[in-house]
């Protein structure tokens, strides 16, 4: 570790305070990464327990009440505490200012405050599990009127999610401002790395969509505490209004989850193919197009809700439109391998896997987007499989790719490549064994969120549970490799992969204010094999 590394520059405080009171974007990034992976770990355990309950029909290890709380908490943690903050708040915080040649984000104190909102929201959710009526049992979607009637601690949990929303909005404002104002001299918009473009698009979604969630959750709290009747038909309210409001945020939110993942893999491919990205502008604009069109498709979560047929038709149409920019990205990634000089190491392996699994997730999304087929698969295991392919196979695999890719930059150490490959094989097998049978279950008519099921569904349920063990083993090996390498790994040079973006021009780990001298940018981000 270089003497001037940010690890050796704690600032005004010492010990744990030098982390939780730090305004250094790199320290805050690491705070996010450690806290969100701790929550991820909890939610994985809940997921494994859920699968264990489903290994056979009837009661296996828990009651129906417990099962419903477990799948709700699994969803709430994975969505709001892991995958929404995920890549932007964790890796984005650490890497983005480095990539644009800045010393920090635009508002370092607000950045710290975002983390505090995040951790407060997480603690409130944690408290909600063990107080009042116990862990919420509504599913992460909190649909009314059930979420109003249930005696479980929905109010407090929803307030926790509200706090997380503030955190996310502040991060969005911070990143958008940073990207506008703090780019290094010479870094024009079309010289920015595409990861930065994806964070920029994500930032706007966070700013514009999250307040809708905040409002919805406050209405829900008012309804629960005071019986306002916003959503109660007997008081002139409407349960469908809740669904609309909820998805006006929660659909754009899936782009908050996936866009940064797409951005991360776009960084990885050129580095290991040793060539420029294919279609830079197409990829940048498709990020904006996804963010823009993504606002207008929330209704596709409601194709069987009783919404008007006209609305269903229009939302189905718009949903297919948003599929196009995602397709464009996939084609550009594949074309970026063409005539490259490819070194297939773990970050690229995870990236290729991301493209494969995300393609399955995206293509099955077409089945959900078409009205006739949606009516059939809506609310079944098909949907569960689809979003785990996009969110886990997509976002999380891209996250793993990015973690391996930027690990040397963040920690100043190398991980063990052979172990990373072993973990990848197990993860890939486990993932597909766990989630693929769910597509079949869905097409056979098995509804989701069922504690118990008819005996004819058992073969696929059993295979899926076995898959959960394999996947968990893969995760354990991967995290063992990464965590142990923080302490025992070989020292990493400033640019171990031969990357061409600015974060690789500084030392690993970077010094307190990132660069000795601020870099001056003279060309695009992906220049390989050219004489400078």
């Amino acid at each position: 570790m270089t003497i001037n590394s940010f690890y050796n520059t704690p600032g005004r405080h010492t010990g744990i305070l030098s982390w939780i009171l730090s305004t250094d974007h790199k320290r805050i990034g690491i705070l996010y990464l450690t806290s969100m992976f701790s929550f991820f770990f909890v939610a994985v355990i809940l997921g494994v327990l859920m699968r264990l309950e489903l290994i056979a029909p009837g009661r296996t290890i828990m009651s129906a009440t417990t099962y419903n709380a477990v799948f709700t908490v699994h969803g709430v943690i994975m969505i709001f505490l892991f995958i929404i903050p995920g890549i932007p708040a964790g890796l984005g915080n650490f890497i983005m200012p480095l990539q644009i040649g800045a010393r920090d984000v635009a508002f370092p104190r607000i950045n710290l405050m975002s983390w505090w909102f995040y951790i407060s929201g997480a603690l409130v959710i944690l408290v909600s599990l063990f107080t009042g009526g116990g862990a919420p049992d509504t599913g992460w979607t909190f649909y009314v009127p059930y979420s109003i009637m249930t005696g479980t601690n929905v109010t407090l949990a929803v307030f926790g999610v509200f706090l997380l929303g503030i955190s996310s909005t502040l991060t969005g404002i911070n990143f958008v401002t940073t990207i506008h104002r703090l780019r290094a001299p010479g870094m024009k918009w079309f010289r920015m790395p595409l990861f930065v473009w994806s964070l920029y698009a994500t930032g706007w979604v966070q700013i514009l969509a999250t307040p809708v969630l905040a409002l919805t959750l406050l209405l829900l709290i008012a309804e629960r505490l005071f019986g306002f009747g916003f959503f109660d038909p007997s008081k002139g309210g409407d349960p469908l209004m809740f669904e609309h409001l909820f998805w006006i945020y929660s659909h754009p939110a899936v782009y908050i989850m996936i866009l940064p993942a797409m951005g991360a893999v776009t960084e990885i491919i050129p580095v290991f193919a040793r060539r420029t990205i294919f279609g830079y502008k197409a990829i940048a604009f498709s990020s904006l197009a996804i963010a823009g069109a993504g606002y207008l498709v929330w209704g596709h979560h409601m194709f069987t809700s009783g919404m008007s047929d006209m609305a269903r038709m229009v939302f189905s149409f718009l949903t297919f439109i948003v599929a196009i920019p995602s397709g464009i990205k996939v084609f550009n990634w594949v074309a970026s391998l063409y005539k490259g000089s490819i070194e297939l190491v773990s970050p690229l392996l995870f990236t290729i896997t991301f493209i494969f699994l995300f393609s399955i997730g995206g293509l099955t999304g077409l089945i959900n987007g078409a009205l006739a087929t949606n009516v059939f698969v809506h609310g079944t295991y098909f949907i569960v499989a689809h979003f785990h392919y996009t969110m886990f196979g997509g976002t999380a695999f891209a996250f793993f790719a990015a973690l391996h890719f930027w690990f040397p930059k963040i920690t100043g150490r190398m991980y063990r490549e052979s172990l990373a490959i072993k973990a990848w094989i197990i993860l890939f097998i486990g993932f597909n064994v766990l989630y693929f049978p769910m597509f079949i279950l869905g097409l056979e008519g098995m509804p989701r969120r069922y504690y118990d099921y008819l005996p004819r569904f058992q073969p696929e349920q059993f295979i899926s549970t076995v898959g959960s063990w394999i996947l968990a083993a893969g995760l354990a090996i991967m995290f063992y490799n990464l965590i142990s390498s923080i302490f025992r790994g070989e020292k990493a040079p400033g640019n171990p992969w031969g990357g061409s973006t600015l974060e690789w021009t500084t030392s690993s780990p970077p010094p307190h204010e990132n660069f000795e001298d601020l870099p001056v940018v003279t060309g695009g981000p992906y220049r390989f094999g050219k004489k400078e």
Partner: protein
Amino acid sequence: MYTTFLDRSANVDNVMFFIVGISVFMLVLVTFLMIFFLVKYNRKKNPVAENIEGNLKLEIIWTVIPTILVLAMFYYGWIGFKIMRNPPRDAMPVKVTARMWSWSFAYENGQKSDELNVPLNRPVKLIIISEDVIHSLFIPAFRIKEDAVPGMETYLWFNPDKIGTYDLFCSEYCGVGHHSMISKVNVMSQGDFSRWYAKKEEAAAPKGRDALAIMKKNACLDCHTTDGTVEIGPSFKGIFGKKEKVITNGREREVVVDEEYLKRSLIEPDADVVKGFDAIMPSQKGALTDEEISVIIEYIKDLK
């Protein structure tokens, strides 16, 4: 064995095959190209890369072709859906009531059932309401689904074109008994259906004296056991004559479980909720006749 897996309701399944076909082709293409490039342009074989910035013609091709394909998918999906939304005029109307956690079906002549009985080849229109939270009526064999929403009426229709028994599920999470909100669709021959349809009085009478049958029909036993184990609500066993702590209007008080209390618990379940349980039971007002209520109370009295 579930024989109707993707072989019925040709309309939906054709859309499915169309989309799946294109999707599989795309997936194979992308995967093949990736693997091919990984092998062919491996650093050992190809030490120097060629920097290709892009190709406008290719970008246009892979924007336009997918656009045409997805618009075709949208169109077929919409056409298939339109059929689902337009029930034939002569369809047999059946009123479906969803509540936590059971279905009931009411027919034109007043006949009621907890399984959906329909005659072969006569289109059926289901008019769906909910008494409490959002549910969703899902019959996989006929590829149909629509939510049951409190405060509004929704509908579905299908043509029962093959004799048999098919699953009917609730597919919108509705609380702790969601997984047990399952019923059946019985597609009968015209003759069998007419015989069942006509015999409503006789069918209702013997049932009226069988407490267990009544409780099963009204899904009481999803939450209350008869053997003393506590699930979602208190067990019926030994409850009669017991002193229970209940919450009335937010205040705790003690009551003796007597006939009057049991009756009130059926009609106004939220009035006095036994401490430690959630106020989630739906009112049985209208669902049970006075005679049925007294049969149930007699049964609980004897359950020591």
